């Protein structure tokens, strides 16, 4: 019988690493996707995934069961990404990154599953010139589909910060895509 999330969490809180392994297997792809979209670098994203699980394991006792485990992990990862972004200062696109974006945009459906390096390349082009907060709110809003309330909870930013950073990020990205010939 498959244990419920509550049972798994309870076992993790008692120090059961087997239960925690199950948590890692369950959420590692979700967190890597988030890291990749926020940081535009696969290795950095993998580091964040590891750091997230280590932090979660260390603070398992503080986990509030009113929230879904995925939300809690997602929040930890978002904040780790933000602090890493501040340290990275800027995502610089590589010479071929724009070509990757053009190729992807020229595909009629735009639904092709991208490789990690392609996704990272597109993120680098889009995020070029954005500040850490702008990048974070833009990613969570447009690339992850979160609403403003959820972004506030995940990032710790207030409503005004979310709104203004999102507005600026949208304008910059819109302008960049326009320069590339896309409306």
């Amino acid at each position, binding site marked *: 019988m498959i244990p419920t999330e509550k049972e798994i969490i309870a076992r993790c809180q008692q120090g059961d690493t087997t239960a925690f392994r199950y948590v890692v*297997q369950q959420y590692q792809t979700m967190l890597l*996707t988030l890291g990749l*979209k926020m940081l535009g670098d696969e290795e950095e994203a993998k*580091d964040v995934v590891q750091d997230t699980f280590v932090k979660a394991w260390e603070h398992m006792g503080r986990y509030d069961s009113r929230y879904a485990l995925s939300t809690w992990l997602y929040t930890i990862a978002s904040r780790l990404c933000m602090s890493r972004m501040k340290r990275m200062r800027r995502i610089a696109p590589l010479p071929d990154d724009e070509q990757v*974006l053009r190729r992807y945009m020229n595909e009629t459906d735009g639904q092709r599953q991208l490789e*990690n390096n392609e996704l990272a390349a597109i993120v680098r082009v889009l995020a070029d010139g954005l500040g850490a907060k702008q990048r974070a709110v833009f990613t969570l809003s447009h*690339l992850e589909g979160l609403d403003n309330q959820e972004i506030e909870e995940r990032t710790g930013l207030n409503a005004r910060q979310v709104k203004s950073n999102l507005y600026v990020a949208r304008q910059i990205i819109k302008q960049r895509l326009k320069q590339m010939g896309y*409306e």
Partner: protein
Amino acid sequence: MNKTDILLDGLQHQQAHIEDEKAFTDMVMGRVEGVENYIPRHDHGTPLKRGRLTQQNNSQFSILNFQFLVRVAASVASVLLVGLFVALRVQPVSSTDSTMCSLHNIDKYRIDLSHISTDSTSRDMYRCYQEAKREQTFYHNELIKYSHENL
């Protein structure tokens, strides 16, 4: 839907791939359990134990602190340098200007002597009168000299 919307919508549905999920899980669990098989990316392949990982974090913290202090010191130094620069930019007063300045201030030194009589019984009062008169004469002479030379 324009092209930008299609792009963003498409990206929203993208998911990262983990080539070898089991190996990745093992790596994460390695860190969680503090097993030596974790190789942090920034450590150039040196396996770390959990204890050393903490040390690494601490050293990163001290480096960050140090960087912060260096930045603060640099800011203070630049402010001081700007202050020094501004101070040096103030031109020293030339001797002529200085004389002019003194002449302009001559009123400051002019003392109303009408109420002091030479037969004052007070020696101090008399000395004061003499000094004031000398000073007034000096500035008077300076004024005449300046006028002759420059006007």
